[in-house]
């Protein structure tokens, strides 16, 4: 303990982490009241990259809102595409061809691996190790190339459409994905050898940033944060959508509640995603990739609709109130990082500053998604 913390003076000072700080992964500002090296109170201040996505959803036509879906969480954009497609399809009662559903799952899971890879690399870089990022980037590049060959973009995907997907996948993509999985599987034990078993990493992560299941419930945290706290909750299982019920995969859950548990959930999820992709490729049926008779000018019936998906960072859900016109009356986006980071204030109390940054990294925030 520092001498300041031990003294009765309790002399505190304010420290701003961010908004321009590499450890915050974007423009997140955390106002910290420090007591020596220890955090007295930490307050995340959001809004530096607020772009009014919800309001845009109310002003644009349903089709025009598509590009916004790639710009919320730019690391797992396909899951967000999936949510929006599912929402409007539920409202319009559009039946999606099975092949399109499988393609959606394959691309979404590839995107999840990509997101976790970057999350893993960037997290280790936050902790001071630069090399793993390069390893992760190597594999991630393969995924980006694969996704680019079908979606046409590398990061801000706008690939799904109401009633299907924009492009059909070809044999090159299928063989490329199989080759990637074959190449990627042996990489994960290498990451574990290089990073997870490292004594420095273990000292920095084990027992750091305890987030109980109770706290997760209180703040609505989802995704790897919740599953790292021992709660087996995954939208793909609990509220199944698309063709996930037909696929066999496990939900990794760790009971340790610390940063290491959250890190391990992400690493294990990559393995499970590989399993999902392989099964989906095996089961991929022939057929069209777009539903017939999807009107160009969409006018969903009056009503209140909701759809949720499991994005890489947790539950992303959209709720819309339609008044029967060509724009939404109210568009609500519930993003996982917002809830995940909101528990930072309570959980980081009394933490060392360096531990707090390790903890923040384990929440894996993506700021544009938090601010929307």
């Amino acid at each position, binding site marked *: 303990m520092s001498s300041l913390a031990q003294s009765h003076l309790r002399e505190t000072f304010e420290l701003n982490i961010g908004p321009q700080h590499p450890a915050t992964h974007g423009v997140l500002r955390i106002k910290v009241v420090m007591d020596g090296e220890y955090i007295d109170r930490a307050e995340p201040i959001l809004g530096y990259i607020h772009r009014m996505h919800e309001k845009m959803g109310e002003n*644009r036509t349903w*089709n*025009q*809102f*598509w*590009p*916004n879906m*790639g*710009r919320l969480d730019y690391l797992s954009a396909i899951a967000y595409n999936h949510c929006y497609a599912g929402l409007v399809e539920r409202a319009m009662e559009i039946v999606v061809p099975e092949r399109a559903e499988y393609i959606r799952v394959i691309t979404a899971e590839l995107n999840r691996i990509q997101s976790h890879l970057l999350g893993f690399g960037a997290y280790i870089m936050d902790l001071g190790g630069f*090399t793993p990022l390069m*390893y992760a980037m*190597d594999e991630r*590049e393969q995924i980006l*190339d694969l996704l*680019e*060959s*079908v*979606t*046409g*973009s590398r990061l*801000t995907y*706008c690939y799904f459409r109401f009633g299907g997907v*924009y*492009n059909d996948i070809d044999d090159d993509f299928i063989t490329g994905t199989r080759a990637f999985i074959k190449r990627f599987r042996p990489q994960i034990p*290498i990451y574990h*050898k*290089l*990073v997870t*078993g*490292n*004594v420095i990493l*273990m000292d920095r992560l084990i027992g750091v940033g305890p987030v109980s299941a109770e706290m997760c419930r209180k703040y609505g945290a989802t995704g790897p944060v919740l599953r790292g706290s021992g709660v087996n909750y995954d939208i793909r299982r609990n509220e199944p959508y698309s063709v996930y019920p037909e696929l066999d995969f496990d939900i990794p859950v760790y009971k340790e509640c610390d940063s290491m548990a959250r890190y391990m959930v992400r690493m294990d999820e990559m393995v499970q995603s590989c399993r999902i992709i392989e099964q989906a490729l095996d089961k991929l049926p022939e057929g069209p990739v777009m539903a017939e008779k999807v009107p*160009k000018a969409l006018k969903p019936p009056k009503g209140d609709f909701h759809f949720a998906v499991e994005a890489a960072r947790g539950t992303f859900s959209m709720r819309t109130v339609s008044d029967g016109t060509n724009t939404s009356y109210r568009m609500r986006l519930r993003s996982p990082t917002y809830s995940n980071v909101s528990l930072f204030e309570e959980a980081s109390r009394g933490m060392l500053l360096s531990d707090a940054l390790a903890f923040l990294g384990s929440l894996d925030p993506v700021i544009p998604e938090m601010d929307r």
Partner: protein
Amino acid sequence: MSGYFTDIITGLKSLAVGLQITNKEFLTKPITLQYPHEAVKMTPRYRGHIELIKDPETGMNKCISCGMCEKGCPSGCITVKSEKRPGVKGKVLTAYILNFTTCSLCGQCVENCKPGAIGFSNEYNLASTRREDYIFDLLRKLHPEGIPEPEVDPELLKKELEKQEAAKQAAAAKKEPAKKAPAAEGGELKAEEKS
């Protein structure tokens, strides 16, 4: 005390295992490309900015100036300018302006285009320090040597002229019985001029 030493040993071991991997990787071939000298091959589906597609038969664009791309664009970055020319069927595209600074490459315009006049280009070297460089006239880009004039169909021109003539006559015929006053005014004017 023994825990202290085992900690050191296991710690050193874990570092050695990690170093083994990095050393192995050190001896492999680098995967990075030396960008300006060698470039990644673009996939055919790469979605760059939109471009007008040349019709191989006529050597012109296929745009019919319906404005569906303009309407469908979420950010309103497309402006289509067209005019009617005598002897040419439909409207003639005079400028297709894309404001690339606000384009989000969603592809709504390409999907909305019924005649398939626009597609995605593979261009990605678009760095510039000037904003004006991102306001493209796609028609000019399609024909850098100069925009060719559309072919005039003599039959259509003749028909159009006949139609115009007929319309004029019809208008005049309509005017005469209905309104006599303007004709009278005209007569007065003429009379004034004479005097």
